[in-house]
């Protein structure tokens, strides 16, 4: 059974259709990269999965359980909270909480959302995650004392602390200086090697090629082409994919 099945997602803003019927599925342990130009709907798709936007049409199924159905009655806030935890989201702009240290950022949500939090256990997990992110010596720093790359790694640890089934990345390196993208990509690569189930929206073509099990190319709110990195990035069949990739290599 696929871990995630997305069927026929539609989403419009002010009568402008952004997603026009998106369907795909993925298995546990896979990493899927979504590529495409700005405005193709990649970010909106991630936001739909994380319940930051409500699709107008379509269903989202995780582990065989339909967690969203546009035709079902609207979900209550507590249902949304429970269901969105299947997913984690790492933002382009990190969105760390400035008044908390790196460690506190990672611990906050597990601490305040649990019924009877085991703070010691939560702290151990948080420390371990930050170590895994290569931030052992930065745990007690506040976000403004960290570089962009370090902040983004804290954000990844923060998302992992809630043990999501599927971790989503929304252009995780687009807000970083070029010399800082490497450290973040390295961490994500490490997660892929550990078979973390991930969806990565990215403009880093060679990274998408190396890390993903599957690549999805989106354009104009539809999936134009999907397949293995070799199929989509090396040997695209569709004209639009070829044009998009050609634009990349000429840059």
């Amino acid at each position: 059974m696929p871990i995630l099945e997305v069927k026929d997602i539609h989403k419009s803003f002010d009568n402008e259709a952004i997603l026009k019927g998106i369907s795909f599925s993925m298995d546990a342990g896979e990493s899927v990269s979504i590529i495409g130009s700005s405005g193709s709907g990649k970010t909106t798709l991630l936001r739909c999965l994380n319940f930051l936007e409500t699709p107008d049409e379509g269903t989202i199924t995780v582990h065989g359980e339909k967690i969203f159905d546009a035709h079902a009655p609207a979900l209550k806030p507590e249902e949304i909270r429970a269901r969105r935890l299947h997913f984690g989201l790492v933002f382009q702009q990190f969105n760390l909480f400035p008044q908390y240290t790196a460690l506190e950022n990672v611990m906050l949500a597990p601490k305040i959302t649990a019924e009877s939090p085991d703070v010691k256990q939560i702290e151990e997990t948080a420390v371990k995650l930050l170590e895994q992110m290569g931030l052992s010596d930065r745990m007690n720093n506040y976000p403004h004392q960290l570089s962009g790359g370090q902040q983004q790694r804290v954000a990844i640890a923060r998302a992992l602390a809630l043990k999501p089934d599927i971790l989503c990345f929304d252009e995780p390196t687009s807000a970083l200086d070029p010399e800082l993208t490497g450290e973040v990509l390295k961490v994500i690569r490490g997660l892929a090697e550990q078979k973390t189930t991930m969806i990565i929206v990215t403009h880093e073509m060679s990274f998408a090629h190396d890390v993903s099990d599957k690549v999805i190319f989106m354009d104009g709110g539809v999936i134009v082409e999907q397949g293995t990195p070799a199929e989509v990035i090396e040997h695209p069949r569709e004209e639009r994919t070829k044009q998009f990739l050609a634009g990349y290599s000429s840059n």
Partner: protein
Amino acid sequence: MFVTVTLSLLEGFLGTIKLFALTLLLSLPLGLILSFGSMEKLGVIRYPIRFLIWVIRGTPLMLQLLVIYYGPGIFFGVNIWGGSPNGRFTAALVAFVINYSCYFSEIFRGGIQSIPVGQYEAGQVLGMTKRQIFFKVVLLQVIKRIVPPMSNEIITLVKDTSLARVIAVYEIIWNGQAFIKSSGIIWPLFYTGAFYLIFSGLLTLLFGYIEKKLSYFR
């Protein structure tokens, strides 16, 4: 004479501080509620509150004091405040609380709306409730941002309390002025300025301290 005047002014200043402190205590929470109302999606809540804020910020506080104190008697034939000093003080307090909640609500609104939407979204995807996001993520950031405009407004409040004398609320200016009639001297009135200066000086130090306390994050 100097000691007599100082003691009398100190007594008046007690009234000033009482009005100041009670206004602050009541209008800070009320202002927060008004700010939520003025950001409410529902027009039936938002428009009346925005209208109230417009009226209160658009008319002089002195006029509001007079309307609130004399209004009920003139329009409904009942002086709900009574003629006692306590009644007049209560009327002044009501006017100050309404006036300052409206100003505070706008400062709160500015502070709340200046928090990037990403902070809310980060809280949401981490499974926090709206309440948790407000109290655990947003509030301290809002407080940090509104300390400078708040300190401005609060120092203004110290001096605005002197307006209460238009409905004969005993405060320091009232007592200072009394010496003109009773002893034919004007310097006690000028001397009141020193009390305001010292008090707002202390407040300035306090706000500086808070600002410094909150400078550990950006």
